[in-house]
């Protein structure tokens, strides 16, 4: 029997082609509310390969969590609607797949961890029961085998005294430990893709680093594709291979992590990087991006960032810039990306 703690070969019907796991193409998501239609995602394209970590970066309301939920298929529809686009997993479009077949991909193929681990764990059951449930639901294991696997997984995510704590309830764990348990549940069935939706936001800084390094370790050990969703530039620097920056439901810049930190190609990315406090610039005022993100029901014409952009010209208010190649492995959606790059 394959153990859950060691990476296993994928023997399922889903085989990645050339290491390509997930392809999101021209994804649109809108929410139909009483007050109108909010366009949360307006044409997002990206792909994730085996063993690669893609970070999706953006502030609240930029559509990064909605993207994750659309990939997982856990958006409540209605009010949400996906008018166009595709999410292909190993060449199979998840959006057109029958719900029952799609459900079976959640867990063994694509899995997800959430921001707040306390509220993501069921308060009425011991944590071990909840991990064991994954094996019983998807693999039809009996109770004692599933519990043994749960203990092994808890040990893998470094929970001390796992054997004793397997019967403890979520509220008896600290925040970091809960997130470890959530991670154990998410990786229990050896998913090929793991989506982490702000996994460290609810934790304090020292624990954040531990959780991030655990995620990185697991990703490398199992050769997973990891999608890391965050608003924290500091968190992604060490872990991510590539970064996609989202603004108002679009990707405005996509590049390898080193390139983006060295030289941003979009004024928004530049603004984000400038707003990180730096030790070597003591005594200066912290620069911030003025204004607020646009209302998703009334996204401004042209470039959505133009009202807040220091470089905005007439063309920015008129024409929406497309996401185009601006260098090797990097794309940006700005009329003046050359100028930003060379600044």
């Amino acid at each position: 029997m394959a153990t859950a703690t060691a990476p296993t070969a994928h023997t399922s019907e889903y085989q990645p082609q050339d290491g390509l796991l997930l392809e999101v193409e021209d994804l649109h998501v809108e929410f139909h509310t009483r007050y109108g239609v909010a366009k949360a995602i307006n044409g997002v394209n990206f792909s994730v390969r085996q063993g690669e970590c893609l970070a999706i970066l953006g502030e609240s309301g930029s559509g990064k969590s909605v993207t994750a939920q659309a990939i997982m298929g856990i958006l409540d529809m209605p009010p949400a609607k996906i008018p166009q686009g595709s999410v292909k997993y190993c060449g199979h479009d998840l959006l057109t797949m029958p719900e029952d077949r799609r459900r079976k991909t959640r867990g063994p193929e694509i899995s997800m961890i959430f921001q707040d681990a306390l509220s993501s764990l069921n308060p009425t059951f011991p944590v071990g029961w909840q991990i064991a449930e994954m094996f019983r639901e998807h693999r039809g294991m009996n109770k004692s085998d599933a519990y043994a696997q749960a203990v092994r997984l808890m040990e893998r995510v470094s929970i001390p005294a796992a054997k004793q704590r397997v019967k403890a309830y979520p509220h008896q764990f600290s925040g970091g430990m809960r997130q470890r348990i959530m991670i154990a549940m998410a990786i229990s069935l050896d998913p090929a893709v793991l989506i982490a939706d702000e996994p460290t936001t609810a934790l304090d800084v020292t624990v954040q680093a531990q959780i991030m390094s655990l995620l990185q370790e697991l990703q490398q050990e199992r050769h997973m594709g990891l999608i890391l969703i965050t608003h924290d530039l500091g968190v992604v620097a060490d872990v991510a291979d590539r970064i996609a920056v989202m603004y108002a439901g679009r990707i405005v810049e996509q590049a390898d992590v080193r390139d983006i930190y060295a030289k941003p190609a979009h004024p928004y990315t530049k603004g984000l990087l400038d707003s990180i406090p730096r030790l070597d610039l003591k005594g200066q005022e912290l620069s911030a991006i003025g204004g607020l993100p646009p209302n998703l029901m009334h996204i401004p014409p042209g470039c959505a960032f133009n009202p807040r952009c220091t470089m905005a010209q007439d063309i920015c208010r008129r024409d929406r810039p497309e996401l185009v190649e601006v260098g090797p492995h990097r794309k940006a959606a700005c009329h003046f990306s050359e100028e930003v790059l060379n600044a």
Partner: protein
Amino acid sequence: MTDQTGIIVAEGAVAQEADNVGQAQSLTQEAWRELRRNPLFIISLILIAIFLVMAVFPGLFTNTDPAKATLKLSATPPSADQWFGRDLQGYDVYARTIYGARASIVVGVMATLCTSLLGVIIGTLAAFYGGILDTLVMRLTDVFFAIPFLLGGILFMSTFPNTVNSGYWSVVSKVVLALSILGWPSIARLMRGAVLQVKPNDYVQAARALGASPWRIVRSHILPNAMAPVMVVSMINLGAFIAAEASLSFLGIGLVSPAISWGVAISDSLSLIRTAPWILIFPSIFLSLAVLAFIMLGDAVRDAFDPKGR
């Protein structure tokens, strides 16, 4: 040296933490501890236990045959031989009161089970699937809410009246049916509200994201977290159903003689209230105690499970 003590202290703390894991308590365990210290809970539990035993094994409490009428002893007052006296027909009031518990408990328990089952299933489905199903079910409960409980029971029982040949169990199940039809909407509404509250929780979303089937989401994640209010209200309702059964029997449209029930006994005793009050008083006391016991139990459980009360 200081370093060493530091290590020892740290080890001690770890050991202590490991101990706490064993003792740490879930909400249920804490509620149970709270309940054990609550005298109201103990009293109502003892009363309920006594009534249950009385309903199942009435022979343990009395050797007198409740169906044996001795007309020449009609309406004799309580004495050492007949503790509660005798009624107009010369039946032993004590024996009849003991045997009367069965009808009340059976009707109360069965009506509670039926309403809870029906209400939980319908309420959960309505809240979980939402949309048109939810709207239809909720409007249906509105219709039922417009009918006053007792009036509805009277209406039902007089629409399908008992005949002379109706057996004991056919009448009992008819009363249960009437109470269930009128009782499920309040449970369904309560359940719907609880499920709606639980459904948007992250752990339900997380279960979906980890591939749980709808049935498993409902069973493992929604029901255990949404059942508490229904359980409490059901317990309180049990008392109300016992009272309702007695009311219907009192009005002559529930159980009727020769069936033995507190409601029937109270009804038969009214004409003699001034000359032979014991015929009225004893079944009334038993009825009140039974209703009170279930309501007190429900109250105590609700308080124990409410963290705000701590």
